[in-house]
């Protein structure tokens, strides 16, 4: 797997995760700190299916989609909806997702122990890189991750712009109160966004072990990249999340790679998250509302000196 291929795979997965985070932020206005755990949930679904029933991780994508979606929807129904009903503010909701992240970490630890005792090998850390096959010299994970993202985007586009439900969803994001008056069930759109967010994160999680090792701290580290991607995109724009995913994903891998070649120090390769952090800080200082919030016409006019 070359550096560029690795960067593209990572960007595809990060885009899926950032899309999910952005969707739920748009509908419920809470940044989900458990998004990383949603992803690792998918990784464990894939590991279980592969080790116990021999189902290849690529084939487990639909199952992970459904299970991850249920996790996302369950999060909304059990944790967030009751809190929103009680009039909780955004900090309370954020703390609730943080608590959920810890609960999922606990369940993950227990599950890894149980699964490990069933298949008689440790499950705290694992990778699927040995499953990667090459098709015409290209690793198949690259093709699969691209197909997943293309399918997701096409599906999302059709849903948002070609169906009545999509119009209702976009309306409830624009103006929840007004769309409720117009008869849109805002609860339903929120629930759906959480389902989709969990499902996308879980699919990303299935493919993540092809690129990097899953360790107990994976979930809390990858959240930095997810937030970076969403913040670059403006935190509440779907197009922004896609752009942000690719910008952060490729720069994490490529900037560290270029620096390590220039300084002849391979140790720099592990500092991808520092690049993400720098991107967050630059975005917040220069354009806090992200790529989607910049008035591009003004920028172009300013650039051309008029």
């Amino acid at each position, binding site marked *: 797997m070359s550096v560029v291929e690795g960067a593209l795979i990572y960007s595809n997965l990060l885009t899926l995760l950032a899309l999910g985070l952005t969707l739920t932020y748009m509908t419920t206005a809470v940044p989900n700190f458990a998004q990383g755990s949603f992803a690792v949930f998918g990784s464990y679904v894939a590991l279980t299916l592969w080790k116990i029933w021999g189902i290849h991780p690529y084939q487990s994508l639909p199952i992970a989609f459904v299970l991850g979606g249920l996790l996302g929807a369950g999060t909304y129904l059990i944790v967030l909806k009751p809190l929103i009903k009680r009039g909780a503010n955004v900090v309370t909701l954020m703390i609730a997702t943080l608590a959920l992240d810890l609960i999922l970490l606990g369940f993950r630890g227990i599950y890894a122990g149980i699964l490990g005792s069933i298949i008689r090998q440790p499950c705290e850390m694992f990778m699927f890189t040995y499953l990667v096959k090459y098709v015409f010299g290209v690793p198949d994970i690259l093709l699969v991750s691209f197909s997943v993202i293309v399918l997701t985007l096409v599906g999302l586009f059709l849903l948002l712009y070609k169906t009545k439900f999509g119009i209702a969803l976009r309306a409830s994001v624009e103006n929840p109160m007004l769309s409720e008056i117009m008869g849109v069930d805002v609860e339903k759109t929120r629930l759906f966004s959480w389902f989709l967010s969990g499902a996308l994160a879980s699919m990303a999680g299935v493919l993540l072990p092809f690129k990097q090792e899953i360790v107990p701290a994976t979930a809390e580290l990858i959240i*930095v990249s997810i937030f970076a991607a969403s913040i670059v995109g403006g935190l509440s724009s779907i197009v922004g999340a896609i752009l942000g995913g690719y910008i952060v994903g490729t720069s994490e891998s490529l900037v560290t790679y270029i620096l390590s070649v220039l300084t002849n120090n391979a140790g720099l390769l592990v500092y991808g998250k520092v690049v993400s952090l720098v991107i967050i800080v630059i975005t917040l200082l220069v354009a806090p509302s992200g790529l989607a919030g910049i008035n591009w016409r003004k920028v172009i006019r300013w650039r051309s000196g008029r």
Partner: protein
Amino acid sequence: MEVWSLILNILLWFGLYVIVSLSLNVEYGYCGIPNFGKALSVIIGAVVVGGIVTRILMAIMGVQGDLVSGSSVVSGKINAVVQSDPVYGIALFVLCLVLAVIIGTIVGALFILPSARLREDYLAITLLAIAETFTMVCYYNPVIVGSYYGVSVPDVFAFVPSSMRYPFIVGVVLSLALLVYILLNRIVNTPYGRLLKAVRENEDVMKAYGRNVMTVRIKTMALGSGIASIAGVLLTFYTLRVQPDSFLNYGRTFWTFFPFLIILLGGAGNNRGVVLGSFIFATLWELVDFYKSNIVSALHLPVEAVWLEYILFGVLMLLILFYKPEGLIKEKPIMTEPIKRKAKKLKS
């Protein structure tokens, strides 16, 4: 004997959590900054001892070599010195505390700069991202505190006989916690403390009154981080090691999540509630720890108790948010002298 060590454990964690949670209470409870990167300031305290003070000692004692091997050599030498003369140990301890508070204060102020003027959700995300990234860099970079191998730290309390060492440390922790409590209670009962609550309640009104919300937030984070780094120093001298992999695995849970749990349990925006919350939390944690082998064997599962504790305390947090978001001790209205007089007048 077992009960005695259980009590000491509870008191130790009670003291450490009082320090960290009180500092978080100033930031979150009073000023409304959701500092999801609280762990950073505790880690800074540990890094100051393991990464800076150890290096200074190595230079003074003329120990050659890298930090990982050099730190254990220098710790041995310093321990011998401290055993013969307690003054050196106490001086070193005080030096570490002062240095950690200074660096913690600076880091706290820098820490919030990128997001100081933004909304709460951006604040929380950025603070968490900075803390996680720093933790990760500590883990990967051997120059800071020895990466995977960690760093040994001299025992500044080596002059205490080993049977009395643990109770002595607990005493030190508790007295510093008391000091922090008194200091912070003083600070939040000044006009500055009332300004914090005003910023929390309504930023825009405070801007209209000519207050700079950004400066208030920076000052508060500096204060909170400086104090929380004391806990990092104390923890380091208790374990006598600095282990970056434990930052990575436990940092966020132990020093960000649990302090938030304590504050919400006891009651945000009031220091007595936070002390009560710390005590309840430390007691619960240690009791679960004490009986964990019984609990695990009762479940008949290959389970480590720490995972159960995570689930238990995560669920506890959700229950508090659902049913008692104001905490056990509710925040009271501020009674300044003029308001008290007015209240008296109204009564009569």
